[in-house]
């Protein structure tokens, strides 16, 4: 295999990993505040549909991405209203959000099925992108990839270095104590949920604007759920999301290449690989006390201000 081709494969791995990174980093922030939003799939697909619609109508990838972000944020606001405002069970609300998102995106996207547009352009820096071996991999990705990395870096810095990040972690650790000290539990959680929605929306938009530059209903194909598993896999640490997403991206790409090479394995089995890998990844990090130690202590518990 030439180094050229190797680099090309690595780039597809990065492309496959990017939507997962985006969605998972948002969900990570949401969960660190103590909210389990299982509606990632629904927010993501809405981002994909509206992202494509926005970009197609305006002709601008940036506007498309913004539309995706807005769609995800609105969905998250709905989720926040239910689970934070009304203290409704987060698991059931997340399911409802996903079902709703899958349906609504299908409705809104009806007119866009079969349309195509150009994928988001890749970065090109004279000299740097042309460097041999790694040039294109490092300096020639599409802008979403760099945005994802910046988001992860920013999140890591925010959580560990800022006062607001500290308050967010405290809220996810013990909402009763946070409330007693006068930290705004519900506001913090709502904002964290909105951030999660914005990221999921952007992740969805990435799918229709860069990954496969067209819209088809249900095209997220469980990526939202995989992102949820990634957060567990990463033990709620930002940089580990990147690692996990690259592993998943690798599995996906490998699967595609295996399909093409056709080793005699049924294609369906290869297609099932990412889902099976998710289960395996969950097992790795689920066992024993390590997981309990890493998970935000108040994750998934509804908060009702005590008297």
């Amino acid at each position, binding site marked *: 295999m030439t180094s050229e081709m190797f680099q090309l494969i690595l780039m597809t791995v990065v492309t496959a990993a990017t939507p997962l990174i985006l969605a998972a980093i948002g969900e990570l922030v949401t969960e660190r505040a103590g909210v389990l939003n299982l509606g990632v799939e629904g927010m993501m697909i809405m981002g994909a549909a509206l992202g494509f619609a926005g970009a197609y109508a305006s002709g601008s990838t940036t506007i498309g991405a913004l539309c995706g972000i807005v769609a995800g944020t609105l969905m998250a606001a709905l989720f926040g209203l239910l689970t934070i405002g009304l203290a409704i069970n987060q698991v059931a609300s997340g399911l409802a959000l996903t079902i709703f998102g899958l349906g609504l995106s299908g409705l809104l996207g009806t007119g866009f099925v079969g349309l195509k547009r150009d994928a988001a352009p890749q970065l090109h820096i004279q000299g740097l992108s042309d460097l041999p071996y790694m040039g294109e991999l490092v300096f020639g990705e599409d802008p979403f990839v760099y945005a994802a990395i910046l988001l992860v870096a920013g999140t890591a810095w925010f959580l560990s270095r800022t006062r607001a990040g500290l308050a967010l*972690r*405290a809220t996810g*650790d*013990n909402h009763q104590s946070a409330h007693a000290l*006068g930290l705004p539990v519900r506001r913090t959680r709502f904002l964290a949920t909105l951030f999660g929605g914005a990221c999921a929306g952007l992740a969805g938009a990435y799918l229709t604007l860069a990954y496969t530059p067209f819209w088809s209903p249900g095209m997220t194909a469980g990526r939202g759920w995989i992102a949820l598993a990634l957060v567990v896999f990463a033990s709620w640490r930002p940089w580990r999301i990147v690692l996990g997403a690259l592993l998943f991206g690798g599995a996906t790409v490998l699967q595609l290449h295996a399909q093409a090479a056709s080793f005699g394995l049924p294609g369906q089995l290869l297609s099932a690989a990412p889902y099976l890998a998710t289960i395996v990844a969950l097992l790795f990090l689920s066992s024993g006390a390590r997981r309990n130690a890493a998970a935000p202590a108040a994750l998934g518990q509804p908060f009702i201000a005590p008297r």
Partner: protein
Amino acid sequence: MINEREMHAAPLLSLRGIVKRFGSFTANDQISLDIHEGEAHALIGENGAGKSTLVKIIYGLLEPTEGVIAFHGQPVRLAGPEAARAQGVGMVFQHFSLFDNLTVAENIALVLPRKTPLSGLRDRIAEVADRYRMPLDPDREVWSLSAGERQRIEIARCLLQDPRLIILDEPTSVLTPQEAYALFETLDRLKDEGRALLYISHKLEEVRRLCETATILRLGRKVGSCDPRQESSRSLAALMVGSAICDIRSPATRDLGSERLTVSHLSLASEDIHGVDLDDVSLSVRCGEIFGIAGVAGNGQSEFFAALSGERLAQSHEAIRLDRLAVGKSDITERRKRGAAFVPEERNGHAAAGDFSLTGNFVLSRHATVGLISRGLIHFGKARALTAEVIATFDVRKAGEDPAARTLSGGNLQKFVVGREILSEPKILVINQPTWGVDAAAAATIRQALVDLAARGAAVLLISQDLDELFEICDRIAVMHEGRLSKAREARGVTREEIGLLMTGDGPEGSAHAH
């Protein structure tokens, strides 16, 4: 001296006609009080008298329905704890408001004013810790600290804001007597610096030691104020409860028979990552005996309870015996069938399920032992009759025919769960913190029931953090510290100080095993 100051300056804090209603329930009704600079003011009253509500209002956590809060004579509206902190109010919570998975420094940083630079925080913590002689390691995560250390964080966090008024809510409830002395010394120093204290406690001896004014609340109303140093603990208690409290009647002599509950060399790793492992615990309780286990919360008591009840199984079958029969690996139902009964510490969600009816809650612990089940079906008629018996015998006050457990007050629910077990006439009763958060009358009923049960020949193992309770009804007392149990002592031949030393792990035996 105080009177003199009162003449010149407006009080630091004055409350006028504070009313707080929750729906139709009035938690605070027309409460007024003044606190001056340098004054230690006690707020005393029973559970449910409205102390916590009033304190939350002062700390800005609740807004009063009516009434005025004034600092230095200026009425203010407290929008939240941050506003209260800006007025110089600091608070040390009873149930610590700490974050287990954050470090000491992070816990403290959270409440400092927004612009405080976090860089110099470490030094400032060290300085406060040093000045008030409260050693603190800023980089430790809270879950790894003892109750006493956690309280130091609360106090340090409060002091770093340089408060003029410090509210302390039952601060000694989780401390050993020695730790409590150390706390009082710190509090004396704070008073000398001119800071005011609002001290909430039901331990009247402490109030008499520390405070020069006391406000007494009963059922949400202020029923009086006094100088506690001029009163006896007994007269204060009468003011608080509104009637004289009966003493517990103990039988003159108790017939101590054979060993009913024997624990030998029980070691068990905790399931909880922040829990305490049991380490070689041994004891025996005889017929007719009440055996007390003292200790600061979180030293392995709940793990020990779980091992005794069979909610967790022991490593060896012989580690626990009921009437000489090994049961270490038998589950809780098996142990109940052998005549044991259990009352866990937490009423809501452990001893009882809040949304279940009282009958359902009766079935919860008695389904296997009173013939309630045949062919997998529950005889609800029989369960209702037995539930009614518990309610009548223990005078459980409730609204409605068969209400959900959560609608009962703490004292009444506790009477129900204790009564549920005692009416099964257990041969062995293991009971954890039976009077925690319960009003005085219910507490007296429960203690009397335990004494009577032992007098009928049962073995009672009482786990409690309340030394008064242990000394009142126990025959022997042992101390649990970091998962180890001290040698048992005759309750009559041991002082509180000795028990207190054992509670800190500094007893004569040190950390050596005593058997």
